[in-house]
């Protein structure tokens, strides 16, 4: 009998705990109300009175810069308290980039949208159609952004997001290894071939391959398609959207993809992107098809690394050898937010005249607005030289279903499960499927 009582007690305890867990949401709603009150009070609040309280929910997709953004949010809290007498609590969420979009979509549809959130510049169109982006054209920040970057975050002349990561990128290379064997960045595919031969004959692996995550092999199509479209077939993408083009026309891209795969490190499918960056940093290979966003990991692994960037050649026409100029991460304001003033204040603060430079520099982001007056890293400068020489193209906006498919098919191609012909056929089909859904 005693043991029965004991069991009943335990069960009751478990029940009470599960109920407490269910009740957890109440706390969050209470916070939201306080936040709503706070923003109302902000307009009327006078600095002599006790500060009003408010809460701002921000969701971002780069956990690798957690520290930098956390301290920036603290600065924002201090600034708001000093200037507007509002005691803001910024709730910064940083889900891993893998699951970020899933979480964001769930939050947006579940009426639980964060006040500000990051999204990829390529998705601005879709999110705008769904009514999830506030117009920022009238804000002070609009006047600061460089014109060519501004284009990438605007739709119909409306500025819909604050660009955060905008970069020129191509292939990363180890300058020390190149100097050791007297090599210079390639201008044509033949140059690249002879670089590979020289490196191989000296026992250095030319390319680092890290194909475990699908987005990494996909970078090769990202670069090569941009090259060929900007240098040779400018109307290809336009026709693809009208079901009038085919990947057959750009088949040439596989020349360089084959070269990279044939001259790469072993066990590529077992290597994740971060591990790849670390291995590249310690000199396991001379070149790495990866964007400048990996520089943070690389320099953290090996602070003495001499990192460079060159444009990936796809054929023997130097006119096709260009770097990719793209905006990836941007910050948007949710139009239904109850804290619109605060949210806009934060959006403006990201491009603040006094503090923004330090933030962008600490994250090694590229300067993209007039308020950025810092000296950029050597690899950023090198890539910018291509842009200055007109050897750059705006990142192609390919539907994300097709981009994902490219990554998947290149993995299959690497392990030998598919052929170029099958890839062409499947990519054409994926593009047509996406077109038919519009």
């Amino acid at each position, binding site marked *: 009998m005693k043991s029965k009582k004991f069991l009943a007690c335990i069960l009751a305890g478990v029940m009470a705990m599960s109920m407490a867990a269910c009740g957890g949401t109440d706390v969050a709603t209470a916070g939201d109300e306080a936040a709503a009150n706070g923003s109302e009070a902000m307009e009327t609040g006078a600095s002599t009175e006790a500060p009003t309280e408010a809460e701002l929910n921000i969701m971002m997709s780069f956990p690798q810069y957690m520290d930098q953004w956390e301290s920036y949010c603290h600065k924002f809290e201090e600034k708001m308290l000093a200037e507007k007498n509002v005691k803001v609590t910024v709730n910064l969420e940083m889900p891993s980039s893998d699951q970020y*979009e899933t979480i964001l979509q769930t939050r947006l549809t579940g009426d639980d949208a964060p006040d500000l959130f990051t999204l990829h510049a390529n998705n601005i169109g879709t999110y705008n159609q769904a009514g999830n982006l506030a117009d920022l054209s009238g804000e002070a920040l609009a006047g600061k952004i460089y014109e060519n970057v501004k284009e990438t975050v605007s739709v119909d002349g409306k500025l819909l997001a604050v660009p955060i990561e905008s970069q020129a990128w191509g292939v990363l290379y180890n300058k020390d290894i190149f100097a050791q064997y007297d090599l210079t960045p390639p201008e044509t595919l033949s140059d690249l071939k002879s670089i590979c031969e020289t490196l191989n004959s000296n026992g250095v692996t030319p390319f680092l391959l890290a*194909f475990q995550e699908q987005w990494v092999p996909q970078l090769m199509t990202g670069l090569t398609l941009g090259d060929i479209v900007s240098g040779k077939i400018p109307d290809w993408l336009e026709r693809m959207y009208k079901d009038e083009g085919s990947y057959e026309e750009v088949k040439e891209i596989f020349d360089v993809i084959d070269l990279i795969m044939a001259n790469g490190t072993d066990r590529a499918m077992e290597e994740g992107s971060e591990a790849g960056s670390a291995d590249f940093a310690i000199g396991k290979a001379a070149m790495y098809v990866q964007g400048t966003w990996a520089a943070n990991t690389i320099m953290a692994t090996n602070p003495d690394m001499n990192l460079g960037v060159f444009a990936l050649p796809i054929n023997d026409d130097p006119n096709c050898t260009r770097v990719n100029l793209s905006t990836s991460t941007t910050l948007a304001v949710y139009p239904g937010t109850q804290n619109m003033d605060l949210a806009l204040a934060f959006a403006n603060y990201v491009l603040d005249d006094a503090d923004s430079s330090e933030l962008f520099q600490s994250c090694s982001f590229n300067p993209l607005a007039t308020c950025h007056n810092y000296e950029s890293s050597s690899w950023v400068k090198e890539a910018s030289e291509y842009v200055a020489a007109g050897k750059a193209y705006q990142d192609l906006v390919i539907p994300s279903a097709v981009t994902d498919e490219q990554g998947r098919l290149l993995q*299959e191609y690497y*392990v030998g499960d598919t052929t170029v012909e099958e890839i062409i056929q499947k990519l054409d089909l994926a593009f047509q499927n996406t077109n038919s859904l519009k």
Partner: protein
Amino acid sequence: MKNKKNPNRSLLIFCAPALLVYKIFKLYPAVSGIFYALTDWNGINKTYHFVGFSNFIEICGDSYFWNAMWFTLKYVLAIVVVANVVALLLAVAIESRPKGKGFFRTIFYMPNMISMVIGGYMWMFIFTKVLYYMADNWNMKFLDKSWIGNPKYSFVAIITVAAWGAVGYLMIIYMAALQGVPTELKAAASLDGANAWKIFWNVTFPLIGHAVTICVFWSLNSGFQVFDVIYALTGGGPGRATQSAAINIYEEAFKGNIRYGYATAKSMVLFLIVLLITMIQLRISKGKEEEL
């Protein structure tokens, strides 16, 4: 005692919290899914259209989905056999030990307490670093396989990790059943001259039939829904080679074209298939159970 009048009421009260959670987080979404399966909702837009059965018609010709379904079937077959055999072996081995039952039970049950995503990442480290280290430095060349990149070996990797996670749970059920087998029956059999194997196969095994039913049902059912292990290990790759039905559905709903309605329709199809197979399994194994 008041409770004797209506024993169901006290049972119901104890079940109420679980039932409530089940209704809100499982039953309601499942039922509302039937509605979304008939729409073209993309998961973000505030509006959507009713499209009738066109999603279901499209599924019939979706080779990626059926390939994923085929992979899932192979996976279920492998995991049901491997996990149950290993769990039963462990249960028998531990039960027959005179000492240290609690210790071994705890050790083998432990993986079950870790989330499979975390377990998957742990094993990922083993497959991509530890095994290669052993292959390169200790001359164990048979380990030098493409554990993530080659679908043949990644299937082995997936089954290993999934079985590692599930065995502890099944083992506990088998142990409970083994403890319920009366010792006098075994003693009688041994007096009649039966050896250990014959005692197990002809006396013990038929008497734990109900545990086999439960364990096979559980492993079948969870096998069809496999997601976390594969997601953490291979992400469904290379390409779509190790994509399970659940991963295919997830990618349809949240990646690429973000077709939420179509993905819901796919999960309806998966649900019907699982329902059919588990019903058949229950009918077959229920008939074979021995009652004391």
